[in-house]
């Protein structure tokens, strides 16, 4: 209708809006930009048809949304990638299942498969308590050393992992030390602490301490304090102390012992993963051969 108003300086069309003599220029987006924008809108519509897009009220089946014609979902993508991992593992798993621990140690490929898988599972499940390097903490055993409360052969380690320590599992390893704070006087506890400290070398033993140890402790821990793996009684003559090795820490443990728990992992982890974990833990440096098993004297 009317002729378009043009700005003198730039030659651009104005919108007709004017404030204090300043006119607003009409500078629309470039045509190519508009075309690309419209194309993305069309693409978006297609996308909503092909892929899951709109939430629906029915939660079941379609996981709460329109399914899309391509049949893709992030759930199926996840299960596909898990399937791919399983396929890759399957190349080793068949051999791994048939192989004994000795066979695995003799086969570098199987060993690396087991160690790598065990290492990953360890960091996911065990590192919370035992540390990423398996070095433990007070109350949580160090898995690198050569002191094993329940035994350090592959079979021992596998049983500890599968059934747990003082866990709810029927086969669980379980031991309980009485709280001697209720049974012994303070002087007696002090004396027996001195005797325990002397077991690894030292002269802090007294006749009273030796007598109480022999009467109260030796049944499980042995006369020489070397422990008993069948009962889960720790070796008291070595340099490893789960709850600390000072006189104070030892007497505290005698008075009111703490008993750590480890869950049973069978049921949470599959048997293959538990075997991989066994290989991994055994390889940390303290693993024992079959001939070492049960031997607490060293």
């Amino acid at each position, binding site marked *: 209708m009317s002729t378009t108003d043009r700005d*003198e*300086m*730039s*030659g651009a069309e104005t919108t007709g809006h004017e404030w204090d003599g300043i006119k607003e220029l009409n500078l629309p987006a470039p045509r190519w930009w508009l075309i690309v924008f419209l194309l993305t809108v069309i693409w978006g519509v297609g996308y909503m048809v092909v892929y899951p897009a709109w939430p629906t009220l029915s939660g079941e089946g379609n996981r709460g949304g329109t399914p899309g014609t391509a049949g893709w979902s992030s759930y199926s993508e996840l299960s596909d990638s898990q399937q791919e991992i399983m396929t890759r593992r399957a190349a080793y798993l068949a051999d791994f299942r048939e192989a004994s621990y000795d066979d*695995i*140690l*003799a*086969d*570098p490929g199987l*060993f*690396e498969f087991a160690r790598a898988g065990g290492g990953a599972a360890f960091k996911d499940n065990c590192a919370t308590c035992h*540390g*990423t*390097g*398996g*070095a433990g903490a007070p109350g949580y055993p*160090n898995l*690198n*050393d*050569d*002191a094993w409360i329940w035994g350090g052969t592959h079979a021992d380690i596998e049983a500890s992992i599968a059934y747990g320590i003082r866990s709810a599992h029927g086969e669980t390893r379980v031991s309980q030390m009485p709280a001697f704070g209720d049974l012994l006087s303070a002087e007696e506890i002090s004396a027996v602490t001195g005797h325990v400290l002397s077991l*690894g070398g030292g002269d802090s033993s007294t006749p009273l301490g030796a007598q109480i140890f022999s009467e109260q402790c030796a049944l499980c821990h042995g006369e020489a304090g070397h422990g008993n793996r069948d009962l889960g009684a720790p*070796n008291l003559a*070595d*340099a*490893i102390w789960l709850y600390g090795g000072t006189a104070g820490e030892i007497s505290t443990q005698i008075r009111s012992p703490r008993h750590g728990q480890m869950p049973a992992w069978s049921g949470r982890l599959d048997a293959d993963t538990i075997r991989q974990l066994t*290989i991994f833990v055994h*390889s940390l*440096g*303290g693993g024992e051969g079959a001939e070492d098993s049960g031997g607490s004297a*060293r």
Partner: protein
Amino acid sequence: MSAQSEPLVLFAKAARVYPKRVWGRFRKLKWGAMVALLGVYYLAPFLRWDRGPHVPDQAILIDMPARRAYFFMFEIWPQEVYILTGLLVFSAIALFFVTSLFGRVWCGYACPQTVWTDLFVWVERLVQGDRTKRMRLAKAPWSLEKLGKLTLTHMLWLVIGLFTGGAWVLYFNDAPTLIEQALDGAIPWSVGVWILALTFSTYFMAGFARENVCTYYCPYSRFQSAMFDRDSLVIGYDTARGEPRGKHKAGDSWDERGDCIDCHQCVDVCPMGIDIRDGLQMQCIACGLCIDACDSIMDKVDRPRGLVRYDTTANQDARAEGRPEPSTLVRGRTLYYAAILAVVGGLILVGLLGRTEHSLHVLHDRNPLFVTLADGTVRNGYEVNILNKTHGDADYQLRVEGLPGAEMRLRTAGQEHSGDISVFANSVGHFRLFITAPKGRTDRHDFDIVLSDADGQVIDRYTTKFVTGDGR
């Protein structure tokens, strides 16, 4: 400012350059350089070099998956990649050195941008004809002939590009195997991506970008001003002899005028589209085609050659003033470039000659740093890598030095070893090492792990530490 002022435009669209065909000695040199360089590029991957079994026999090969680079008798492992770095530094200094001696000969004759552009222009000329025909075709309205000629040109360019990318990937794969795979249509996708990328970059760089690459993209041409001095060899127009220029009819006198007959040939043949008579310009790649063009014209009008020629600014000025020409090749600049070149080259040579074929690397465990054992002794763990760079399996002995009474346990995969171990040819052996210090030894301690060959001859040693809780 007036109301009619046009919007300010700061961008000048580059005019298309249509270089004219030229004959002469520098053109011949350029053809020769092109054939030689493209020949080397396309054929070098097919050279064989016998290195024994289980090792590639391709003379020049960068084997990315295996992390190895082979160059005839030399072989480089990832640890020695500094030699490649040295080679790059050497190449850069060599470029400066040659520039200080002969000016931009790299730009004019050897740069891939120049060589491929030259090849693409040759194809263009073959299909569409010389300069004037090409210009006319570009201006002509669309016709079946124009469509056909342009299609043919671009198809040929793409084929050249495809071969360029195709040859590139041969340096990273066994050439005969890859060609077999390509004929079966079964090349890996990564190879395909590289081929396509280089096909289209060649097509774009040599077909379209051309002289703009030298003028706008190339850093080397940009810092020419820092490398040039008055003794640099450049292509120069002899202003004293040429001016005043003007048309010349046969039989006219040459007195009172310059030798330049303003025939515009030097401009028409220039692949950069510049006029050399305007003096030294950043765009000039010193290819010498204007010299060929001018010389042939000087021959025709019976004047001496060399109105346009390779010369130094110092010489030009000296001649104009009648002084003796001062420029020589031996100057401070050439001397110190030569010295740097010798030093870098020497370092590379030392690196290559001093290369060990067996080496030992030890990494102390960080988690846990140390382990206290039941008997109170302290154990440390180490990752031990032994590099066997030879092409045969090798036997070694490993022992601890400087930690008396230490007990050593060595393991590969699940197996315990004594100190006697072996590592396969051309590979890295991974071992797990546990060292237990004798009882009572509780201080932090540096010591050596020593690698010797089967006869006990020491090959390599690695100083590492033994950590205990008390020693921190």
